[in-house]
C-alpha cells in the first residue's frame, strides 16, 4: 500500500448502508454510512446498546451485516472470514492464550502465516522491545498484571502489520491511573507506527484524549462524526451535547430566529439569546445547552450582555483544581457552574468569567445572577 497508489484522502474502510438486526424485529445498527481514513485514530463512542460494538464486530468479521456492504481498501469484505481480513484486534479481556508464553502469544499471528522462523523471531523481539517486556517473554499471561497483559495483547495485534487495528474497550478492566498511562502509550504507538485504529469505548474522556475523530453512536445511528474539539464546541444535537462533557439543560420555546441566533423564552421564566443549532423555527420547543465552565456568577442583574438570569445557590462543591456551584436556575435545580476555587487571582480579564464570584463567597440560599455569552448557549432539539 504505497501512498502514491491511492487517491487523496483515501477511505481505508467504508461502511455502506449497513443494517444489523439480531432478532429480525429490532435494528441494532440502522443505515450506517461511515468512512475511516488511512492512518487515523477513530473512536466509536456511545452508551451500551448503541450499536458501536456491533459495528466493530461486523468490521472484524464476527458478525454479518443484515444489509449493506463493508469495504476494506475498496474490497468488499462482507463474505470474507475474519482470519482472512488482515485486521488486528485487541479485546476487552485481552484474550491472551493462557497455555502459551508471552513470546508464543506474540508469535502466534506470525506462525499461522508461516513466516520464516528467523524473521518471526526478530519481529517478536522487536515487539517485546516496543512494549518493554523483553524479560517477561517466557512468562504465562496468568503471571502478568492487567496492564502488562494489555501491552502483550497490543503487541500481538500489531506484530503482523495489519492494515487496521480494532480495539474493543481495551482499557475497561484497568484502574484509572493505569488507564490514563495506557491511553498515552496507545496514542504514541499510533503516531509512531502510522497505523489505522478503530477504537470502541463508552468513556467520553478517553475518546476525547485519544481520537483524531469520534463517531458518536446512539440508538443504532451515528449522531455526529467530528474532531474532539468540534464535537465539544459544536454538537449537532442534544444527545451529543449531553454525552460529551458536562452540560446544563434549560427547556424553552423559540420566540424569534435571526440568522444564526434565536431568542428563547425559558419554561421557568426569563428569556435568553442562543445559537440556533438544531431548531425548526419560531414557536418550536427547544432545549438549551450551556457548559458549566462558560458561565459566570455575578451578584446583580445589571450589566451588559443579553443573557442574565436570576439563580439561587443550593450548595458549593470543592474539587481541588476547580469548584462547582449547584444553582437553581429557571426551574432546573441541578444547574452547575464551574468556578475557580476561592482566593485565586489568576483569572484572565478577557474571559467573561473574570468578574465571576468565587465558590467561598457563595452561601446556600443566596440569590445571585448567572451570565453567559450567546455563542456559548446552544439551542438544540428538545430532550
Amino acid at each position, binding site marked *: 500500500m504505497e501512498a502514491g497508489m491511492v487517491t487523496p484522502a483515501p477511505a481505508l474502510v467504508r461502511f455502506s448502508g449497513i443494517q444489523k438486526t439480531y432478532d429480525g424485529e429490532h435494528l441494532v445498527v440502522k443505515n450506517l454510512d461511515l468512512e475511516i481514513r488511512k492512518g487515523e485514530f477513530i473512536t466509536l463512542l456511545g452508551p451500551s446498546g448503541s450499536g458501536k460494538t456491533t459495528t466493530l464486530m461486523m468490521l*472484524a*468479521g*464476527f458478525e454479518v451485516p443484515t444489509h449493506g456492504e463493508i469495504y476494506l481498501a475498496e474490497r468488499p469484505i462482507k463474505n470474507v*472470514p*475474519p*482470519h*482472512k*481480513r*488482515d*485486521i*488486528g*484486534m485487541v*479485546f*476487552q*479481556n485481552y*484474550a*491472551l*492464550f*493462557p*497455555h502459551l508464553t508471552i513470546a508464543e502469544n506474540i508469535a*502466534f*499471528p506470525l506462525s*499461522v*502465516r508461516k513466516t520464516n522462523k528467523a524473521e518471526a523471531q526478530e519481529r517478536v523481539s522487536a515487539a517485546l522491545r516496543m512494549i518493554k517486556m523483553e524479560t517477561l517473554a517466557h512468562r*504465562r*499471561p*496468568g503471571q502478568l498484571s*492487567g496492564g502488562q*497483559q494489555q501491552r502483550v495483547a497490543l503487541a*500481538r*495485534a500489531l506484530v*503482523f502489520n495489519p492494515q487496521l487495528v*480494532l480495539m474493543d474497550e481495551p482499557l475497561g478492566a484497568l484502574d484509572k491511573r493505569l488507564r490514563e498511562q495506557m491511553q498515552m502509550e496507545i496514542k504514541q504507538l499510533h503516531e509512531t507506527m502510522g497505523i489505522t485504529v478503530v477504537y470502541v469505548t463508552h468513556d467520553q474522556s478517553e475518546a476525547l484524549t485519544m481520537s483524531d475523530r469520534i463517531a458518536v453512536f446512539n440508538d443504532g445511528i451515528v449522531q455526529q462524526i467530528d474532531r474532539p474539539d468540534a464535537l465539544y464546541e459544536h454538537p449537532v444535537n442534544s444527545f451529543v451535547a449531553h454525552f460529551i462533557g458536562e452540560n446544563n439543560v434549560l427547556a424553552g420555546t423559540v420566540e424569534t430566529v435571526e440568522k444564526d441566533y434565536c431568542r428563547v423564552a425559558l419554561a421557568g421564566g426569563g428569556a435568553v439569546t442562543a445559537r440556533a443549532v438544531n431548531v425548526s423555527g419560531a414557536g418550536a420547543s427547544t432545549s438549551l445547552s450551556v457548559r458549566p465552565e462558560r458561565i459566570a456568577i455575578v451578584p446583580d442583574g445589571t450589566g451588559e450582555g443579553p443573557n442574565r438570569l436570576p439563580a439561587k445557590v443550593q450548595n458549593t462543591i470543592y474539587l481541588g483544581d476547580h469548584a462547582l456551584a449547584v444553582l437553581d436556575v429557571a426551574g432546573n435545580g441541578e444547574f452547575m457552574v464551574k468556578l475557580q476555587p476561592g482566593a485565586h487571582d489568576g483569572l484572565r480579564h478577557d474571559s467573561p468569567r473574570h468578574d465571576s464570584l468565587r465558590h467561598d463567597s457563595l452561601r446556600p440560599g443566596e440569590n445571585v445572577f448567572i451570565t453567559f455569552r450567546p455563542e456559548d448557549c446552544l439551542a438544540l432539539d428538545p430532550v
Partner: protein
Amino acid sequence: MTDALLTGANASTEVPLKRRLRRAERTRQVKALALVLPLLLFLLFTFAGPIAGMLWRAVDDREVRQVLPQTIAALANWDGRDLPDEKAFAALASDILAARATGTIAIAAKRLNYALNGFRTILTSTSRNLKAQPEPGTARETLGKINPAWRERTTWTTIKDASGPMTGFYLLAALDLTRNVDGAIVAASPDQAIYRDVFARTFLISLSVTALCLILGFPVAYLLATLPPGRSNLLMIFVLLPFWTSLLVRTCAWIVLLQSKGVVNDSLHWLGIIDEPLRLIYNRFGVCVAMTHVLLPFMILPLYSGMKAISPAYMRAAASLGAPPVTAFLRIYLPQTLPGIGAGSLLVFILALGYYITPALVGGAADQMISYFIALYTTETANWGLASALGAVLLLATVLLALVYGKLVQGQQVTGGMKN
C-alpha cells in the same frame, strides 16, 4: 525512646499472639473436624478398612502354620536340597494326628492344594491311614509307605513355602508366576497362567471404552458448552438421564437391543441389509457398546466443565490473528481442554477397570474382566488370598495411573488461571 517502647511491646506480645492465634484456629479446626467426622468414620470403616484388609489377605498365610505347627518348626532350618530329616516326619505325623482330632486338616489341605495340585489327596489319605504316632525313627518310612509323595522333595518345599506368616505366593500367582522346587521365581505352568491375559484384556477393554467415550463425548461436551443456555440445559438432561437409570436396567436394555432376535438385528433384517442375524452381544463388541453407554456421562461432565471455562474470546482472538478455524481449534481450543480430557479419561478408565456387572451380562467367556475373577474367587471358591492379590495388583495399577495423571495436571496448572 518511642522506638524502644514499640520494639519492647512487640517482643513481649509476639509469643502470646502466636499462641492466641493457635487457640483461635484450634477451635475452628475442631469444629471443622467435627463436621467431617461422620464421613471420615464412615469411609474408614467401609472403605479404608476393607482395602487394608484386602491388602493384608493378599500376603497373609497362616493356615498351614496353625494346622501343622510342629512340622513348620522342624522345617525352619531345612535347606530344601534333600528330603528333610526324621524329626520333620515325626513332627508331621504328630501334627496330622492332632489336626485329625480337631478336624482342621481340610484347612491346611485347601491352602496346600493351591500350591501343588493333588496335595489335598496326599494329606487326607495320610490322615486316614495314619493309625498312631510312628515309633521314633520310623516316621519317615511309615509316611512314605502311606503315600509315596512324602518321599518327594516338592511335597516338602510346598509345606515350607506355605509356612507363613506372610507369603508372596498369591501375588506371584496373580502375575502368572510361581516358585519352583528350588525357590526361584519362574513362570507358572501354561494351564494356570491366565491372569496376565485377563489383565491385558481388562486394560484393553478399558482403553477402548475410554477412547470411544472421548470420541463420542467431546462433540457433545462442546455443544453443551457453546449452545445457548435453554438448549444446552435440555441437552444436559439427555446426558444425565442415563445417570438416573439403574446400571442393571441399562445393561439389560442393551441385551434386548443387541441379541440375535433383538431390535437391531430385526430392523437390519427387515431392511434387507442382512440375512443372518449379526452377533452383536456376548462378545467384545457388546461389552464395549454397553460400557461406553454407561460411562459416557463420566467423560462428558469433566469435559464440559473444562470447556465452559474457555472464553469464546480465545477463538475470536485466534481468528482475528489470522488462524483458520481448524488451526485455531487445534492450537488454541484443544490444548485448553487437555485437563478436562485428562480428568474425563482417567475417570472413565479407572471406572472401566473395575467393571463387573456389564461384562458379566453382555460379554462372552473371553470378555470377562479382572473383577469377574475377583468375584469368582471370593464368592465361589473362597480363595480369598488370590482374590485379594488380584485386587491388590489392580489397585496398584490404578494408583500408579492416578499418580501419573496428578503429575501431568500439576504441569498443566501453571498454564491456567487467566484473569477474566
